[in-house]
C-alpha cells in the first residue's frame, strides 16, 4: 500500500540519500584501494624507485616506461638439461657413491648469454636425465612454494583443530568456560608481539620449548634456525595464535545444531563417531566453508610473524620467504624497486583472486 503512494520525487530523494550514504565509504575505498591498484598496474611497467635520484637542477629523475620487463624478470623460468661431467677417458664421471657428477649450475648459467640474470631454482632427475630449472627471480618462486605449503598445512590442520577444540569446550562439564577462555586468549594478543616471545621460546640452545621437549627425550630441534623446520615453526605459532578464533565460530555452529538430531540418531543406534560423521559435520557445512575460505585468504597474506622472527630475511635459505615479504623487501627495503614490487603486487593479487574464485566454486558446487 505504502509503496504505491510513493511519488517520483520520493524516489529521487531516496536515490540522492543512497548516494550520500554511500559517499564516504565509496570515496575511501576508491582512494585507498582502487587507485592504489591502478597505480600498481601503472608502476609495474616502469622502473620507479622508492626515492628518486635528484638531478643537478634539483628536479627528480622521472621513471622510465620499461614495458613488461618487470614481469619477465619476475616470471621468467627456463629448463636446462645438464650433461654429466666427462672424465679424462671421455666417460661420465661418477662420485664415490657411484652417482653421476654434474657441473655446477652456476657455471652453466654464467657460461652463456641466454641465461643472463638467471639463477638456479632447483634440479631434478627424470628418466635418467638431470634437469636444471633456472629462474630470473628464484626467490619469488620459492615464496610461492612456501606460502602454498603454509596454506596447505594450516587451512586443514587449523580448521580441524578448531573444530576439535570447539567440541571439547562445548561439553557440559565443569570449567569448560575456563578452558574456552584460555584457548581463545592468544587471539587477543597481537602477532608482532607474540612473534618476539616465540622467537625467544624457540631458541635452540636455551629456549623453553627444546628444554621442555627434552623431558620426553624429544629433540633438540633447530626450529627457526634450520631450513627444514623454519616454516613448521612459523606454522605452529600461527596456529597457536589463530585457532581460538575459529574455535569460537565452530562453537557457535555447534550450539545451533538442534539437540533432537542427536537424540534421534542415538535412538537409531548411532555411536559417537557416527553422530559426528552424520549429524555434526553436515550441520556445520556452512561454518566450515566460511572458516576454510577466511583462513585461506589470511594465510596467503602471511607476513608479520615471518618478518619479525627472521628479521625480514625470510631465511634461512629462503625457507620462510613469502610473496608479501618479498614484495616489501624489493619495494621498500634493499634496492627499493617500486616498479618491480608493483609487478609482484599485480601478479599476487590476480593469483589470490583466482584461488578465491576457484575455492568458492568448488565448495559451493558440492552443495548442488
Amino acid at each position, binding site marked *: 500500500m505504502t509503496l504505491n503512494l510513493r511519488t517520483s520525487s520520493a524516489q529521487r530523494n531516496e536515490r540522492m540519500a543512497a548516494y550520500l*550514504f554511500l559517499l*564516504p565509504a565509496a570515496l575511501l575505498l576508491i582512494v585507498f584501494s582502487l587507485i592504489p591498484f591502478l597505480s600498481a598496474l601503472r608502476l609495474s611497467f616502469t622502473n620507479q624507485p622508492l626515492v628518486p635520484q635528484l638531478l643537478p637542477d634539483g628536479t627528480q629523475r622521472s621513471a622510465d616506461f620499461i614495458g613488461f620487463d618487470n614481469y619477465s624478470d619476475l616470471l621468467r623460468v627456463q629448463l636446462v638439461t645438464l650433461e654429466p661431467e666427462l672424465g679424462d677417458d671421455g666417460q661420465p664421471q661418477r662420485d664415490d657413491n657411484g652417482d653421476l657428477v654434474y657441473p655446477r649450475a652456476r657455471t652453466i648459467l654464467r657460461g652463456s648469454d641466454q641465461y643472463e640474470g638467471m639463477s638456479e631454482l632447483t634440479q631434478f632427475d627424470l628418466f635418467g636425465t638431470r634437469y636444471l630449472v633456472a629462474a630470473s627471480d628464484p626467490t619469488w618462486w620459492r615464496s610461492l612454494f612456501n606460502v602454498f605449503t603454509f596454506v596447505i598445512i594450516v587451512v586443514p590442520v587449523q580448521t580441524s583443530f578448531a573444530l576439535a577444540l570447539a567440541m*571439547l569446550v562445548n561439553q557440559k562439564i565443569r570449567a569448560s568456560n575456563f578452558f574456552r577462555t584460555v584457548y581463545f586468549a592468544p587471539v587477543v594478543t*597481537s602477532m608482532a608481539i607474540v612473534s618476539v*616471545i616465540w622467537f625467544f621460546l624457540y631458541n635452540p640452545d*636455551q629456549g623453553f620449548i627444546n628444554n621442555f621437549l627434552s623431558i620426553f627425550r624429544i629433540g633438540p630441534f633447530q626450529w627457526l634456525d634450520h631450513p627444514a623446520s623454519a616454516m613448521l615453526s612459523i606454522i605452529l605459532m600461527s596456529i597457536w595464535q589463530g585457532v581460538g578464533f575459529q574455535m569460537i*565460530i565452530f562453537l557457535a555452529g555447534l550450539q545451533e545444531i538442534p539437540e533432537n538430531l542427536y537424540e534421534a540418531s542415538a535412538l537409531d543406534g548411532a555411536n559417537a563417531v557416527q553422530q559426528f560423521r552424520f549429524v555434526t559435520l553436515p550441520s556445520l557445512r556452512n561454518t566450515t566453508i566460511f572458516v576454510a575460505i577466511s583462513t585461506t585468504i589470511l594465510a596467503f597474506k602471511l607476513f608479520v610473524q615471518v618478518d619479525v622472527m627472521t628479521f625480514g630475511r625470510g631465511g634461512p635459505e629462503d625457507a620462510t620467504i613469502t610473496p*608479501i615479504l618479498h614484495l616489501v623487501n624489493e619495494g621498500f627495503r634493499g634496492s627499493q624497486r617500486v616498479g618491480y614490487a608493483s609487478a609482484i603486487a599485480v601478479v599476487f593479487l590476480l593469483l589470490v583472486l583466482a584461488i578465491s574464485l576457484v575455492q568458492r566454486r568448488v565448495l559451493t558446487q558440492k552443495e548442488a
Partner: protein
Amino acid sequence: MTTDSALLRAEAAARARSAQTRKTIRSAINYAVMIGLAFFFAFPIVIMLVSSFKPDEQIAGDMRSLYAFIPRNITTENYSCADYDLATSDCSPTPGENPGLFERLPFGRIYFNSVFVTASIVIGGLLVNSMAAFALARLNFPGKKLLLTAVIAMIIIPFEALAVPLLLQVNSFPWIDGSSTWINSYQVQIFPFMADAFSIFLFYQFFIGIPKDFDEAARVDGANIFTIYWRIIVPLSLPVFATVAILQALTHWGSFLWPLMATRGFEFQPLPVAMRVFFGQAPRQWGDIMAFASLATVPVLILFLLFQRWFVQSVASAGVKG
C-alpha cells in the same frame, strides 16, 4: 539358586562398577587433554609475564627448568621509571640499574598511538561502513547490484599487496596542518582502513534481515531517511555494531606492515612496530622486551575477560552470518 542370583547380582554390580570406572577414566582423559591444551595455549603468555619481573641476566638461564614459570629474584627494574615526564613520555634512568623499558623508549606515547589509531578506525569505520551498508540493504537506487558485487569482491583483495604503491600515493597528500605529505602521521594510519568491505558486508547481512515494516511505518509518519537510519536501524543493530567493532579492533590493534612503512620513529608508531624495532635494537634485553610484551598484552586480556560474552558472541556471529 541363591548362589546363582547372588552371582548375577555381583556380576551386574561389577559391570556397573566397570562402567563407572570407564566413565571416570574417560572423564580423566578428557580433563587431561583439556589441561594439556590449556598449557599449550597459556605457556608463552605465562612465561612472558613471569620473565618480565626478573633481572635480564637470569631470564634465559631460567628456561632450563621449572623456574621459567616461577618468579624468583623478583624485580621491577624492567618497569622502573623515575621522574616520568608526561610531555615527552620519557623517564630518566634509575642509577645503578639496567635501564628499563620506560627509560629506553617513550612507551606511553607508543601506547597512546596504538589506542588512538585503533579507536579512530573503529569509530569512524562503524559510521562509514554502516551508512554504506544501510544504502545497499534498505534503499533503492540504480547500480545497487553492481556495487554489492564490488564490495564482496573487495573482501578478497589483500591490502598488503597495495601497500607500496599506496605509500607513494599518500606521500603527496596534503593535510590541514599545511604539511604536504601524510607520511609519519596519524591520518595515514587511520583513513586507509576506515572503509572496510568485510564490515560493510556484515552490516549488510544484518540490515537486510530487519523487517521492512519498521522503516515503511516511519516513512508514513514523515521520517526522513537519515532519521530512519539513526533512530530505527542503528538502535536495532547494536549486536552487529559490536561484532564489527571488536573484529576491527582486533585487526588494527595488531596493525604492522602499513605503519612500518608509513611512520618512522616512536612519535607515531604503534605498539607492534615499536616492538619490532625494540627487538632489533642492541643490546637485546629480554627483561625489557618481556615487560613491553606484557604491557601490550595484559590490558587487552583484561578487557577480553571483562567483556568475554560480547567478544565470543561477536566473533561467533561473524561466522554464522558469513
